[in-house]
């Protein structure tokens, strides 16, 4: 095959993978809904209505899109380094704690407090990720379990803060702290809940990561480290520093995600501040094939399903966790359809057009 022909075939195969997996996912969710005695079309309508049905709904979808995109774009960096940063959930919580601390303790002009909450969130998330990285590099602790342990620690600290030092005056309850002062909240667009500051930060983060991985020698070397730590070490790349840098960058983004979640959505500190957004971000990064350019659109879809699921509850009486079912089924279908595609190519004796395994790919 010529290069052009192979490229065309590869593009075709990729599109087919996308179409088939969306079809499989839709079919599976549809059948599931039918079993539950619901009309799938009505469910789809409710989802759309709940996420894009009005200006307010679109704004709410964007409010969820911001932290999902931030956490997922950070994960693209850690995945590129070949690391399974499952501790991202804890880094989101750590970021929220950092932002909450500033929001509660610092007084001053609103722009300054807001800026400081974002900085504190980034620092806290970055430090939490650095811990997982240090455990991985110096303690030879698998990053999955180090990260999970740290996530559980962060959850414990969050609960402690809410029932202990940050408890509401006179009430010891796990429901949350007092609301933050007005000036610490992310400024919103009129009556809508979406914050232009958060949107700008998110877009900047996506662009920065895209450029970092694609346009800098750091990104190139990081990809080399992700492909083979041993070869990169032999080539003279300081692998330890690169791994730690990847963790810190991922943690910074996850931290900001937690920060905007607490000051831009909850308006006070609650123990379940992340609510699984970190885990959801891992699904987004997987679905994006660890490519920065796909993160934002996929995160938008995930945000829409997450936000729209409230309508599923109102109109069809389905639990809002059904959003997670839709998202999980979609990612699983993509993985399986890719696997089938690759196996067919293997059987036909052709080199598979796209990477045969869903592993950390070198291209961005």
């Amino acid at each position: 095959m010529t290069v052009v022909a192979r490229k065309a075939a590869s593009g075709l195969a990729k599109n087919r993978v996308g179409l088939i997996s969306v079809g499989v996912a839709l079919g599976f969710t549809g059948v599931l809904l039918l079993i539950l005695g619901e009309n799938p079309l009505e469910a789809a309508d409710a989802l759309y209505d709940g996420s894009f049905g009005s200006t307010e709904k679109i704004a709410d979808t964007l409010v969820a899109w911001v932290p999902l995109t931030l956490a997922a774009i950070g994960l693209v960096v850690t995945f590129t380094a070949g690391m399974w940063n499952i501790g991202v959930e804890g880094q989101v919580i750590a970021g929220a704690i950092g932002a909450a601390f500033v929001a509660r303790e610092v007084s001053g002009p609103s722009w300054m407090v807001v800026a400081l909450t974002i900085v504190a969130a980034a620092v806290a998330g970055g430090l939490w990720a650095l811990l997982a990285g240090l455990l991985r590099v110096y303690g030879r602790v698998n990053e999955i379990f180090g990260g999970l342990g740290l996530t559980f620690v962060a959850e414990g600290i969050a609960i402690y803060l809410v029932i202990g030092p940050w408890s509401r005056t006179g009430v010891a309850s796990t429901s949350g702290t007092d609301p933050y002062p007005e000036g610490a909240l992310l400024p919103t667009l009129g009556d809508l809940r979406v914050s232009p500051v958060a949107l700008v930060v998110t877009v900047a983060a996506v662009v920065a990561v895209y450029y970092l991985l694609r346009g800098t020698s750091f990104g190139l070397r990081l990809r080399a480290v992700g492909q083979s730590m041993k070869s990169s070490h032999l080539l003279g790349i300081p692998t330890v520093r690169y791994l730690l840098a990847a963790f810190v960058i991922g943690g910074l983004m996850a931290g900001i995600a937690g920060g905007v979640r607490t000051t831009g959505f909850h308006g006070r500190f609650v123990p379940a501040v992340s609510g699984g957004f970190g885990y959801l971000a891992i699904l987004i990064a997987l679905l994006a094939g660890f490519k920065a350019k796909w993160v934002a659109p996929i995160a938008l879809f995930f945000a829409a399903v997450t936000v729209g699921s409230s309508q599923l509850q109102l109109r069809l009486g389905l639990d809002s966790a059904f959003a997670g079912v839709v998202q999980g089924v979609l990612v699983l279908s993509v993985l399986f359809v890719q696997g089938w595609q690759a196996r067919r190519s293997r059987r036909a004796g052709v080199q598979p057009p796209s990477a045969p395994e869903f592993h950390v790919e070198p291209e961005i």
Partner: protein
Amino acid sequence: MEETLHAIVRDASPLVFAVVGETLTERAGVVNLSLDGSILLSALAGFAVAFETGSLLLGFGAAAAVGMAVALLIAYASIQLRLNQIAVGFVLFQLCTSMANAFGNSYVGERVKGVPAQEIPGLADIPFIGRILFDQDLMVYASIIFIFVTYRFMFRSRHGLALQGVGERPEAAHARGIPVNRLRYLYTAVGGAFVGIAGAAWSLDVKLGWSDNRTGRFGWIALAIVIFGGWHPIRAAFGAYLFAGLQNWAIQLQDTFPNLTQVLGIMPFPVMILTLVLVYRDWLQRLTDRFPALRPVLGNEPPAAIGTTFQQE
């Protein structure tokens, strides 16, 4: 003391099923990372079926079937499709968790009759040990027997040798005529079934009932215990008892620090996982360096072919 140990043996029984089951799976070279989700979903399946049919046996059967189905998906993805086991396992964790929380609402607060206590006549009268080991219920006895049966099977039988070969050196096993991939399917499915039984052992026995995230985090703890139990059923089970002890201690501390109840509820999870991760391995390492004779018992090497695919040419 006697009562505490009695409670620990009881409370650890679901975790014992999970860690020993997953040890079987990983020994064959497959990692089932979905544990936290598949345990939760099987717990719901077991509870729901037992509630609808009134039969505990059917409940446990349904839970085992769910655990096995999830495990078979991972086996198919990794063996037939050569997908990344970690990726597929993680997605299944998320999917199963969501499914359990989405479909379990109508069972919140419902009651079923759990596994009845059943003391073993004669043995239960032995002082101290009798109360701890022989005055429990059937699932607890089953969990203890399961540990030793798995141990015997793994290290003292021909099938166990084949299992180890499949996980350590699949090429050599294949050359000896052992059907590598078929055995991987088998042990992933069997391990998954026990993971499912673990779920039902919570919702139908130790933590009777159903609520959202009822078994949350236990699956992750189980996965960590398997690793630091050195893929050895007895040591993994020991880890499960250690964790139950930690939880028991945390509950007792709640009387001393009543305003920290919620924090103490969660603390055993990070303490266990970070202890395993930070201390346990180094400590074992030093012990085996000092007494090399202990290495076969305390060795910590993962099955060499874990997480890889085997291609028959």
